[in-house]
């Protein structure tokens, strides 16, 4: 599977994601913010970082760049799209996933390992887990608190992908830290699966995100 890894000015997890995707057997290739056509790719990952310095709101400026048209076309064509951390914030800003990831409940940038519960396996990225699996992946964000004014609809439509298990470090609604669109093909997660893709990193629990994508 040929996967576009989108780079904005300020993206900084692009090479980690590239590496993790290769580990999973995929064919990653970088694409820039001004590339409008992504039709030659089979899937898309928006990696983490601080696109445009997080000015205005995290992800707000990236959300109006030309590459977003390519991402929307890919979604319409039924291709899997994963946003990680800043990528998740961007997907929420575009409205491809519901809700918003905003300032943590405490004035703190959180960078730590977390335990997470897999809430659905209907996305390509979680298809290799079982519902209820507890996995370890790190978070690294200041704006990760999930808020949605239609939380019941989100749950009824099986759009919750990941939730913090135990402690809820950023004050997210119902500890939700990963959501998907109605079809389950667009997935936005605040934790970093690429930073948990090899045992040497402390966990390889996140590798299945990429394996599931490649396998799709």
């Amino acid at each position, binding site marked *: 599977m040929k996967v576009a890894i989108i780079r904005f000015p300020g993206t900084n997890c692009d090479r980690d994601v590239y590496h993790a995707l290769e580990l999973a057997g995929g064919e990653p290739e970088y694409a820039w913010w001004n590339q409008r056509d992504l039709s030659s790719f089979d899937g898309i990952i928006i990696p983490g970082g601080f696109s445009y310095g997080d000015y205005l*709101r995290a992800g*707000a*400026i990236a959300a109006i760049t030309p590459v977003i048209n390519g991402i929307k076309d890919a979604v319409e064509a039924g291709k899997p799209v994963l946003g990680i951390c800043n990528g998740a914030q961007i997907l929420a800003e575009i409205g491809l996933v519901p809700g918003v990831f905003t*300032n943590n*409940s405490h*004035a703190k940038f959180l960078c730590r390992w977390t335990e997470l519960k897999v809430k659905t396996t209907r996305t390509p990225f979680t298809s290799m887990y079982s519902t209820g699996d507890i996995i370890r992946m790190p978070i690294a964000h200041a704006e990760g608190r999930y*808020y*949605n004014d239609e939380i019941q609809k989100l749950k009824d439509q099986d759009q919750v992908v990941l939730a913090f298990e135990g402690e809820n470090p950023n004050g997210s609604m119902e500890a939700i830290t990963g959501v998907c669109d109605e079809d389950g093909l667009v997935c936005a997660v605040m934790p970093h699966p690429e930073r948990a893709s090899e045992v040497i990193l402390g966990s390889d629990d996140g590798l299945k995100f990429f394996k599931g994508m490649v396998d799709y």
Partner: protein
Amino acid sequence: MKYDAEVKISLKKGILNPEAATIQRALALLKYQVENTKTLQIIKFSIEGDSEDSVRQKVDEMCQKLLCNPVIHNYEIGITPED
């Protein structure tokens, strides 16, 4: 004609404002007891337009497309002719 535009962005009622909460706690450290602390974002610019109404409409579009996130924000637009 040139107009001065001001967009005042605030969080909707009931949305947690961690920045304001932190400022309120810091004021308390200085023995100032205050309540209902809020922070707002103000964006100002000059813009060319035919009338106040048409400029207001354009700025409203900007708010919906970029400046605000409708899930959590309210906004107020102020338009005044430039001196």
